[in-house]
């Protein structure tokens, strides 16, 4: 179906769900009215609560929901809107106390009513969840442990919040309203069970095995997987998948990687993995034949999703992976649309896939511009970082019909985006893959 229509549909559904509690509360029998600031505070509580519950849908990786927007953007949105929601929920008791300082005792976790203590506990759970997410790296919290704590704290906060609402009772005095509000949250949270329980069960039917592990330049590995007993998956070049290694698809250890193989060859899929952390540093020692599960394809960073007369790719380091897939796919298709690839890295020896890219130049209308931070002495190409001058030297003046795809470290993406904007490239022709998941 048309991605715009699907996107609009989910947006409308989202907008309806997030204000639904206020509508439910307003339905007769309406509770007796309170002063403005009290009503405002409680409305913030309700919209904040349902917004937290919606987060479980956002992160559940429903392809139907995420494809129109791109899952990386959904996850970025998740981080920001969840912060807003927690802010609204914190404002809820604060406004009550500012409106009537006599209520200050309700903020004391050891005093106040049972309702206020449960409400406080829900808030503390959310604040702890947010702090752990922001400071995970600084306090060296294990990624898997963080994910478990993140889910548990989120669910605890929602359960406690509903308990708080029921105890206060004023706005949901009638049983059916309580049930409707709890049902809304339950349905939203249940989507999370889909991600963690039903989806792995489905993945069990489509296992892969590690077929080949090839070292590339720049501490990068190509991990090739063969489907076992099924056809494999169709993906668009530029997409990525969450990879789980080992016999159980229920493992919580999973990592997102871009496909680097051609989308035109069915069956075998390959990923590019750079040694950057605990999991990736060990990738070279994974035994051939290890069982693997692939949750994908995800993402909308693909020329297949954005037809254009030509493309300009910007890769920084291992950010080359999705472009390798794009170039291989376009070569297999005999696609002769003009492509300029800016590929920035530190040293010439570290430039992963450079030999293959040079070979692909012969099969494509491809112009590759390597930009090296630390070039060898006899280097005649671009040096430093990809900047406006480099763009001016290598891009035709009338290139506005092309689509600009960027993948790499955040500072590189920011710098190139600014350079493109100053060249007059409109924002809607620039696509960036920023994969900084927590």
């Amino acid at each position, binding site marked *: 179906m048309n991605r715009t229509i699907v996107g609009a549909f989910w947006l409308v559904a989202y907008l309806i769900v997030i204000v639904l509690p206020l509508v439910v509360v307003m339905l007769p029998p309406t509770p007796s009215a309170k002063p403005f600031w009290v*009503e405002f505070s409680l409305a913030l509580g309700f919209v904040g609560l349902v917004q937290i519950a919606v987060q479980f849908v956002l992160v559940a990786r429903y392809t139907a929901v995420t494809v129109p927007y791109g899952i990386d953007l959904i996850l970025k949105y998740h981080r920001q809107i969840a912060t807003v929601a927690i802010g609204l929920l914190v404002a809820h008791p604060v406004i009550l106390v500012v409106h009537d300082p006599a209520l200050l005792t309700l903020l004391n976790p050891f005093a106040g009513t049972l309702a206020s203590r449960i409400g406080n506990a829900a808030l503390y759970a959310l604040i702890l969840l947010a702090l752990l997410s922001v400071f995970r790296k600084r306090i060296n919290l294990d990624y898997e442990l963080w994910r478990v704590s993140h889910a548990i704290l989120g669910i605890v906060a929602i359960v406690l919040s509903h308990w708080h609402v029921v105890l206060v009772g004023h706005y949901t005095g009638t049983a059916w309203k309580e049930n409707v509000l709890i049902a809304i949250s339950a349905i939203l949270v249940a989507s999370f069970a889909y991600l963690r329980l039903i989806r792995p069960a489905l993945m069990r039917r489509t296992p892969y095995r590690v077929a080949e592990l090839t070292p590339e330049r720049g501490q990068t590995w190509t991990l090739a997987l063969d489907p076992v007993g099924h056809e494999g998956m169709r993906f668009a070049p530029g997409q990525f998948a969450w990879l789980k290694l080992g016999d159980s698809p229920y493992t919580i250890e999973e990592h997102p990687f871009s496909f680097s193989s051609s989308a035109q060859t069915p069956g075998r899929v390959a990923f590019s993995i750079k040694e950057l952390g605990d999991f990736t540093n060990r990738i070279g020692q994974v035994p051939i034949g290890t069982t693997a599960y692939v949750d994908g394809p995800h993402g909308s960073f693909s020329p297949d999703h954005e037809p254009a007369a030509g493309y300009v790719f910007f890769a920084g380091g291992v950010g080359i992976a999705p472009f390798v897939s794009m170039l291989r796919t376009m070569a297999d298709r005999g696609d002769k649309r003009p492509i300029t690839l800016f590929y920035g890295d530190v040293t010439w020896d570290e430039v992963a896939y450079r030999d293959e890219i040079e070979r692909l130049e012969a099969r494509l209308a491809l112009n590759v511009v390597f930009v090296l931070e630390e070039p060898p002495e006899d280097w005649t190409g671009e040096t430093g970082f990809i900047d406006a001058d480099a763009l001016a030297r290598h891009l035709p003046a009338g290139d506005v019909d092309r689509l600009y795809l960027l993948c790499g470290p955040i500072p590189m993406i920011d710098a190139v985006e600014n350079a493109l904007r100053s060249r007059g490239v409109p924002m809607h022709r620039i696509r960036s893959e920023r994969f900084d998941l927590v």
Partner: protein
Amino acid sequence: MRHVYVNRAVIVLATLLVVAALLFAWARSEGLALALLVDQRLLERETETPIEGTAGDDGAARGEDVWSAHCSACHARLPHVPELAARAGGRSYLIDLVLFGFEGEATIDGERRSFEHPAFGDLADADLAVVLDHTLIAWDEDDTSDDVDRYRPEEIDEARDRDLAPSEVAERRQDG
């Protein structure tokens, strides 16, 4: 560069949520009361309340004024008051309800739910008496206003000595 759209979407959504909450609060504390007031005026016109039949009776006119000023913000109409007054202790329970407020559970239209009512003890005894009379006769379709046992200001004055808490008023309600 679409991440810029995410920032914008978050700002728009956050604004929308706060505006929705403001609208809700306004509707509940002001707008809804205004709407109910209009509603009540329409109802009065349509049902030709018996108030008109007692025109010239200062008590009834005053009762209607007090109702408009203090009750109509929340109540459009209260046709079940005569039935409440007829229950055991109902007459004095109604006095306690307006004097001291109510906080607890009540059975309304066959359904048990939590319920609150503000205290109007700072109104004059005479005003409370006439507004209670108003609730007894205003929606009585049989127009038995002449037979109604009207509240006397002295009754209200005596009741003040009970000095109940809203939750105690709730306990005094007879819900069969």
